[in-house]
């Protein structure tokens, strides 16, 4: 048995016998003695919490292999201990709640209310983790995954996390799809809500009426996915394959929208193209084009989402475009293909994983987007806003929200399957260990022209939106009163000099610090879990892999509001009682944003030849070492993408966190939403400007810290211009 296994068994004992088993009551201030022994599972068990005592059995079983024995029986003992331990902890956790028995059967059998207990604390968490790890090590000892304990442990941990933080909360809320408002099982009501005309109606094709919200969402999602992929590709090609002079600016332009808090793009579009917007006024005065309200509805949401999500496509595609081996293209040219033919038959097919992933992300993002449809949707309804108002609106119909969520989920998963079908079983490996002597070809002229023609006007458009945003924070009231002022910034970010130091008296500081803290915690966790998952999915083979992949995508596919409510339903009561803490916000972000890490990791990994890992493994390095020394350095673009994305998302997400914020952990976005609701656009825009700057600094920092991938490709020009999001020029 390995020392790691031994270590986990010891930790399991520490968690049970020394650390406090339960979490502390919110109102109590724990002292040091509370942390040690006095409130451990063992002590409490002996003092009368009898349901904790059975946990002792698997802990003792786990000691059996320590005493020595043959490998095979050791493994069986470990598996047995792990399974039994987890089962016992789950069983007592879910049957005994804050107010006694949780099941009516138990109440009638043993009398109400029965024993009571609080949420899991350090001890319970550590012991459960130890059981899980011992179980995984046991499987490794049985020879699973070539006996690699690192791989089995990683799979085990990620599956456990996904079950706890995705399946468990989501299933609690989806169950309400089949219940009526008082909580009884009512499948008929489900069907009535599901086939409702407001969801699937096709009246817009035949007449003047509106189509169902499902079709609206689908149509918008496809438009946006197509548009963002195209624009992202244009930007990626220009950034990697041309000698365009303003690449730096172009990159900043393309990345700015992703770091813009929601509502702001929508607001800026209204201020530009609304009926009394700056652009509309110009058009009216110069060309006599009458002012209209065209921006409210499909066009507005489409433009705003294009602005917001093109950067994601760009981030995914740039890693892929850059990873394409010039050797193949050179071979094509040597065989006398014209540059256009080469582009169409070699370069483009090699970009397929990137294109498919960019399309998928664009589609899913559009489906999940909440802020833009809220501000610009007009009478064009989409599922995400409809779901939000089913929960908080005048109808207060959680079941309807759950039904609509199922529709949304079906779309997302459908896109996921289509993508799989399209990519098929082809091989896209272009980063190999063999010498790569090629020079990236310049783009064929028509492709270059098309790229410029799409990307540059778009960049200019983005720029004008941001000019509006930049001005908005510094004038009294955008659109009405252009007197310059610093008031908005002072209200939000005033700092006073007191005798004892600086006093942050501005009204935004509180939420600002909380947001930065939560974002800084969740970004590295998201990237780590996401990339580890991508590695397991592409490099390891294990049964249930597809189900595993499906699980990682699930939380992304579910609208934020539903996730928010489901987190309260699941985590407000024991055994896992974490609402009201910063931890629940971090976990919410990690599991909502992880899919981007997974997707970009998969896209990049499928380009990297497995022989590189195999070489490392053959030379005696373990999976962990191979991961760290070989795979990770090659994954740098994906690391940057997922770190940046998760940090930014943690700072800009709205719908998921609206239910999770507390007085201590108020998030910047909820503050901004409140400002927008109160009509203080100036303050909202000023706060957003500050957030944008913070995110720019963070992105630059991430870029510098992770560094760039060196692929040993020669460059045609002397100033090589590699990868990813160089945010600031």
């Amino acid at each position, binding site marked *: 048995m*390995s*020392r*790691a296994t031994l*270590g*986990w068994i010891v930790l399991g004992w520490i968690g049970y016998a020394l650390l406090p088993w339960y*979490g*502390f009551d*919110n*109102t109590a*201030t*724990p002292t040091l003695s509370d942390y040690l022994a006095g409130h451990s599972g063992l002590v409490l068990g002996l003092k009368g919490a009898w349901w904790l005592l059975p946990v002792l059995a698997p802990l003792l079983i786990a000691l059996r292999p320590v005493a020595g024995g043959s490998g095979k029986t050791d493994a069986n003992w470990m598996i047995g201990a792990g399974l039994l331990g987890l089962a016992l902890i789950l069983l007592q956790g879910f049957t005994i709640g804050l107010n006694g028995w949780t099941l009516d059967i138990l109440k009638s059998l043993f009398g109400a209310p029965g024993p009571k207990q609080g949420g899991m604390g*350090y001890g319970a*968490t*550590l012991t459960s*983790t130890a059981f899980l790890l011992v179980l995984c090590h046991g499987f490794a000892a049985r020879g699973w995954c070539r006996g690699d*304990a*690192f791989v089995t442990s990683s799979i085990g941990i990620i599956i456990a996390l996904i079950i706890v933080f995705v399946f468990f909360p989501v299933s609690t809320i989806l169950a309400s799809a089949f219940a009526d*408002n008082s909580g009884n099982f009512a499948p008929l009501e489900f069907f009535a809500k599901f086939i409702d005309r407001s969801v699937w109606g096709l009246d817009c094709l035949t007449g003047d*009426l509106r189509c169902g919200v499902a079709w609206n969402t689908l149509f918008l999602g496809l438009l946006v996915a197509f548009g963002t992929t195209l624009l992202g590709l244009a930007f990626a090609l220009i950034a990697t394959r041309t000698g365009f002079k303003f690449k730096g600016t172009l990159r900043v332009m393309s990345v700015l929208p992703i770091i813009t808090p929601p509502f702001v793009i929508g607001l800026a579009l*209204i201020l530009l193209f*609304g*009926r*009394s917007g700056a652009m509309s006024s110009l058009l009216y005065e110069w060309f006599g084009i009458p002012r209209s*309200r065209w921006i*409210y509805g499909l066009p507005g949401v489409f433009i705003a989402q294009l602005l917001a999500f093109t950067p994601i496509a760009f981030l995914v595609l740039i890693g892929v475009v850059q990873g394409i081996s010039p050797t193949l293209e050179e071979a094509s040219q040597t065989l006398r293909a014209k540059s256009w033919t080469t582009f169409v038959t070699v370069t483009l097919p090699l970009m397929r994983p990137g294109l498919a992933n960019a399309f998928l992300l664009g589609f899913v993002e559009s489906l999940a987007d909440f802020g833009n449809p809220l501000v610009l*949707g*007009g*009478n064009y309804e989409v599922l995400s806003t409809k779901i939000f*108002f089913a*929960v*908080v*609106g*005048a109808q*207060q119909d*959680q079941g309807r929200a759950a039904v609509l969520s199922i529709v949304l989920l079906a779309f997302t998963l459908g896109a996921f399957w289509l993508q799989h079908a399209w990519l098929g079983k082809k091989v896209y490996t272009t980063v190999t260990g063999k010498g790569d002597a090629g020079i990236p070809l310049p783009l064929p002229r028509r492709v270059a022209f098309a790229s410029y023609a799409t990307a540059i006007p778009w960049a200019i458009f983005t720029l004008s939106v941001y000019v509006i945003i930049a001005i908005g924070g510094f004038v009294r009231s955008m*659109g*009405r009163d252009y007197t310059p002022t610093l008031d908005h910034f002072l209200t939000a970010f005033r700092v006073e000099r007191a005798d004892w130091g600086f006093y942050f008296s501005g*009204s935004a500081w509180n939420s600002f610090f909380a947001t930065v803290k939560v974002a800084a915690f969740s970004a590295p*966790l998201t990237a780590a879990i996401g990339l580890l998952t991508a590695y397991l999915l592409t490099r390891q083979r294990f049964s249930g892999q597809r189900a595993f992949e499906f699980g990682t995508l699930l939380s992304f596919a579910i609208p934020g509001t539903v996730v928010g*409510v489901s987190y*309260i339903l699941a985590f*407000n009561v024991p055994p896992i*009682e974490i609402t*009201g*803490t*910063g*931890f*629940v916000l*971090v976990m919410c972000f990690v599991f909502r944003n992880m899919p981007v890490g997974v997707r970009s990791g998969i896209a990049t990994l499928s380009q990297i030849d497995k022989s590189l890992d195999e070489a490392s493994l053959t030379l005696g390095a373990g999976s*962990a*070492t191979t991961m760290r020394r070989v795979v990770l350095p090659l994954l740098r673009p994906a690391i940057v993408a997922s770190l940046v994305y998760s940090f930014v998302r943690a700072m800009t997400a709205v719908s998921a966190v609206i*239910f999770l914020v*507390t*007085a*201590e952990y108020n998030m910047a976005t*909820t503050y901004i939403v*409140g400002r927008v*609701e*109160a*009509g203080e656009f100036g303050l909202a825009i000023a706060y957003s400007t500050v957030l944008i700057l913070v995110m720019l600094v963070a992105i630059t920092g991430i870029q510098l810290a992770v560094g760039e991938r060196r692929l040993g490709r020669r460059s045609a020009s002397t100033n090589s211009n590699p990868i990813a999001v160089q945010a600031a020029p």
Partner: protein
Amino acid sequence: MKLRKKLVAASMFAGAVTALSFASAGAAQAQGALVMYCGVQEEWCRGMVNAFERETGIKVSMTRKSAGEVFAQVKAEAANPRADIWWGGTGDPHMQAAEEGLTVEYKSPKMGELQDWAVRQWEQSKGRTVGIYSGALGFGYNTELVKSKGIPEPKCWADLLNAKLKDEVQVADPNSSGTAYTLLATIIQLMGEEKGFDYLKSLHKNINQYTKSGAAPAKAMALGETTVGIAFMHDIVTMVVDKAPIKVVAPCEGTGYEIGSMSIIKGAKNLENAQKFYDWALTPAAQKIGAETKSYQVPSNKATPVPPEAPKLADIKLINFDFAKYGSSEERKRLLSKWDNEVKNLPK
């Protein structure tokens, strides 16, 4: 090899511990002696919290959310309530929470000082919620746009059907906004159900957008995005005070109103402090804070000075709004689905 595995294990452990310490740090901080969900504007909420803390020394942890969001949260947290008091926000969700038993009865010694409508709210909810302010429904128009269009100034609900106002009226969607639901209930009580729906159908032709949030039409009016906006009058007044070219109208036929309410959450961990806050929030000193923070609702304590900017309830023809009937879940569901089918889906 072994060393490396140990490192991996150790780092995983360290990760778990840091994550947990993060969690407990949050939990340890949440020991405020009163946890409050606030349903009005940020400044007003802040003002209330600061004044109460100064007065009593009780530390308040306040979270601001819209009324619907607070209701959804209180309902989701019912098994293990986090909040003690829910202050502010339109009355419907408070009534519904009372109906579903999410809040508890309390009779404040201040009850005698309150306006009749506030006491009626308390009686109808069997003591579970009390009125703290009220505001009448009305509409406003952008004076510049009305002038440039040459439309006579609208004064009544009927004037909004003017064909010249096609695509110029904005109101929220009653499915998402309590404000718009108040409009729906008001029109029905004014005109009767059948005629009321006829009115809403004709109005539909003039509506350019059913917004999500109830106050959004007021903002859209201020920006000149719509000519007429239907909203609570105090929300429109806030825009007027902000120097927007808007005129507020109390419709001549009469109009409905909302009662902003306050409830104590069932299972509140700091029940005593919640009651203290409840009593204090009904005093004139506490109710003055609204006007000081640019919210111009009419306060429920008779002794509280009514802000001069506030629409005078005395000058407004108020209907006898039946909150019990139109606040009940069943009636609401029926009216909303009727509105969905008969009004919203109409071609223009």
